[in-house]
C-alpha cells in the first residue's frame, strides 16, 4: 500500500516534470562524468603500474631480508637458480628470473661514470621485463656469448659509445674483492625511464657472478605474471620460501613506494576536482528542493492544519529527494557503465599516445577500469550530497507555523 507521504512526494515530484527531468539530468550528467573520469583515472593508474612494473621491477621479488632497504652486495639469495626453478614449478609461471645488482665505475675511451650493473638471465629476463624489447641500437643479450653488455641510451651518450665499443667496468665484488672486466657493448636501450637510461647496464648473470664473485647467489628473483593473479602467485612463491627465513617476498608497493605515493597524491588532488563537481550538483539540488518547498508553503500549511506533523512533512521532502537522487544515481550508473564499457572494449586514445606507445613498448590506448570502485563512489557521493542538500529545506520547513503557512500565497 502506498503510504500518504510517499504518494504526496511522488505527485509533487511530477508536478513540474521539466524541472524534475532537468534535475535528474544534472545528476546523471555528473554521475556519468565522474564514472568516466574515475574509470579513466584508475585505468591510467593500472596502465602506469603495469608499464612501470613490466619494464624491470616485476609484480614481486624475492630478496634477502633487508636488501630492499639497504642493498649491500653481501645480502644475497643462496642457490638462487634452484629457488627460481622451484618458484616456477609451484606457481606454474615461466616469468621468474634471477638477477644480481652491483655498482661500478664504467669507463669508455673518453669518459668514466658511475653506474648500476644488472646481471640478468637472458633466457628468462624477457619474460619479466620489457627492456629487451626497447633496444634502439644493436641487440639485446642473446645468451650465446658470455661477455657482452647492453646500456641505457643516456649513459651511452654520456660515455660517447655505440654498439661495438668496449667498456671497462671496475667495482667491488660480493666478498670485497675487486670486480673488473672489459666487455663489448652489443645494444643500447631506451626505456623512457630517466634513471634506467642514465644509470643502468645489463650483462649476462653468469658473467656478472664471475666478475662480482657471486657464486650461485643472486640479489633478487623477479616474478612477473598478471596482476590479477598476483595473490595466487604470491601464495606459490611463499610456499617455496617456507624454510628460508632469511628471504622475503616483496610486492610492487614495497618495491616501488614512490609510484604508489605518486598515485595516491594524484588521486587525492583529482578528488578535489570531483568534489567541486559534486558540490555544484548538490547546490543545484538544494535550489530545486528549496524552490519546491517555498512554493508549497501554503500547502504545507494545509497539511499541518489537517494534522500532518512536521516529522511527516520532513519525511515527505526526504522521500522526494531520495526518489530524485536514487533515480539519478541508477540511470547515471547505467549510462556510465555503458560509456566506460564502450571504451574498455574500444580503448581511449589522445593525440601523441600512439607514438609514445610505439616508442616505449607500452599500449597505445588507454582502457578505463570498469569495477565497483570506478562505478560506485562518484554516484554515491552525488547521492549523499543530494540528500544532505535536502536537509536545509527541511530545517526551513520545521519552523513553519500553520497559520503563517496558510497565509503564504
Amino acid at each position, binding site marked *: 500500500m502506498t503510504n500518504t507521504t510517499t504518494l504526496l512526494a511522488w505527485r509533487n515530484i511530477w508536478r513540474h516534470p521539466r524541472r524534475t527531468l532537468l534535475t535528474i539530468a544534472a545528476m546523471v550528467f555528473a554521475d556519468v562524468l565522474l564514472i568516466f573520469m574515475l574509470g579513466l583515472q584508475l585505468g591510467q593508474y593500472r596502465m602506469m603500474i603495469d608499464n612501470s612494473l613490466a619494464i624491470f621491477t616485476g609484480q614481486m621479488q624475492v630478496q634477502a631480508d633487508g636488501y630492499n632497504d639497504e642493498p649491500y652486495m653481501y645480502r644475497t639469495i643462496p642457490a638462487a637458480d634452484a629457488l627460481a626453478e622451484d618458484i616456477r614449478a609451484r606457481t606454474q609461471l615461466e616469468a621468474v628470473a634471477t638477477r644480481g645488482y652491483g655498482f661500478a665505475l664504467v669507463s669508455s675511451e673518453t669518459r668514466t661514470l658511475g653506474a648500476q650493473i644488472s646481471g640478468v638471465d637472458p633466457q628468462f629476463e624477457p619474460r619479466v621485463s620489457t627492456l629487451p624489447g626497447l633496444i634502439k641500437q644493436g641487440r639485446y643479450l642473446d645468451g650465446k656469448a658470455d661477455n657482452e653488455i647492453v646500456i641505457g641510451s643516456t649513459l651511452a651518450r654520456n660515455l660517447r659509445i655505440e654498439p661495438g665499443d668496449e667498456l671497462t667496468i671496475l667495482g667491488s665484488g660480493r666478498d670485497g674483492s675487486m670486480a673488473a672486466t672489459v666487455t663489448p657493448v652489443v645494444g643500447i636501450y631506451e626505456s623512457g625511464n630517466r634513471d634506467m637510461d642514465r644509470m643502468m647496464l645489463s650483462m649476462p648473470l653468469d658473467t656478472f657472478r664471475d666478475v662480482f664473485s657471486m657464486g650461485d647467489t643472486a640479489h633478487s628473483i623477479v616474478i612477473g605474471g598478471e596482476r590479477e593473479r598476483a595473490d595466487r602467485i604470491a601464495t606459490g612463491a611463499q610456499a617455496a620460501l617456507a624454510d628460508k627465513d632469511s628471504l622475503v617476498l616483496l610486492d610492487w608497493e614495497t618495491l616501488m613506494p614512490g609510484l604508489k605515493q605518486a598515485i595516491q597524491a594524484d588521486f587525492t588532488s583529482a578528488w578535489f576536482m570531483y568534489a567541486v563537481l559534486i558540490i555544484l550538483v548538490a547546490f543545484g539540488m538544494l535550489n530545486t528542493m528549496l524552490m519546491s518547498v517555498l512554493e508549497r508553503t501554503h500547502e504545507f500549511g494545509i497539511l499541518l*492544519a489537517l494534522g500532518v506533523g512536521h516529522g511527516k512533512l520532513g519525511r515527505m521532502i526526504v522521500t522526494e529527494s531520495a526518489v530524485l537522487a536514487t533515480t539519478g544515481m541508477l540511470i547515471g550508473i547505467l549510462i556510465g557503465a555503458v560509456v566506460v564499457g564502450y571504451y574498455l572494449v574500444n580503448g581511449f586514445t589522445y593525440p601523441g599516445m600512439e607514438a609514445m606507445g610505439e616508442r616505449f613498448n607500452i599500449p597505445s590506448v588507454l582502457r578505463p577500469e570498469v569495477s565497483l570502485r570506478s562505478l560506485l563512489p562518484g554516484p554515491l557521493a552525488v547521492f549523499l550530497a543530494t540528500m544532505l542538500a535536502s536537509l536545509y529545506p527541511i530545517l526551513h520547513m520545521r519552523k513553519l507555523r500553520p497559520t503563517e503557512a496558510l497565509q503564504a500565497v
Partner: protein
Amino acid sequence: MNNPAVICHKVDKTFQQGELAVHALSGVDLEIASGGFVCLSGPSGSGKTTLLNMIGGLDRPSGGEITVADLRIDRMRMSELAELRLHHIGFVFQAYNLIPVLNARENVEFVMQLQGVAAAKRHALAMDILEEVGLKGMEERRPGELSGGQQQRVAVARAIVSKPALILADEPTANLDSATAEKLMQQMRDLNTHIGTTFVISTHDKLVMSYAKRLIKLHDGKIVDDIAQQ
C-alpha cells in the same frame, strides 16, 4: 450531560507588528456545548478567524486557557496539537485549501489515510460522502478541474468524512453563489442534527447566521453579543 466541546477562559492574542502590539483577542470567555452550531460574526479584524485558529490549535494564545475535547490545548506541543487536529477537529477554509496534487476522492481520503483507516473502507466512505455532497462522477478530478463551489464541497466532505467531534469553518460560503451556499449550509446543519457534530463557523454571511443555533458577535477582539437562535 456532555462536557462542553470548547472552553475559552480569558483568552488573549497579541500580534507584534514591528513595535506595534495589535490585540486581536482580549479576555475572551466562551463555552460552546457539544452539538452546538455556533456562528462567530463581526467586522473584519474583529478576531473571528484568530479565535477559530486558537480553538483549532493552529495558533497559540498569548494568554488564557483553551480546552477542547477536555484537553488544555494552550499547553500542548506542536506534535500533540497535530494529533488533536487529526483525530478530533475538521477544518473548512474560506479558500477551500485542497491539496492540488490529489484528486477529489484522494483529498477526502487523505485525513482517513493519516488516521490509518483501511484502504477499502476509506475508499467506500469517500465515495459515499462525495455522492452526498453532489459530486458523484467527479471523484477523480483534481481541484483545478473543479469549480469553486465544487471545491468547497470537497473541502466539507474532507472535514466531515471521519466524523470529527468539532468542525471549524472559516467563511465557508464566501466564494460560493447563494444556491450552493444554501445547499452547503443545509448539509452542515443536517450533520449537526443527525450526528451531533459541533460546528463553529466564522462568517459575514447572513444566510450562514440564519442557520446558527447561537450567534456570537465579536468586535475589536471582544465578545460583544451572544444570542441563542432557533
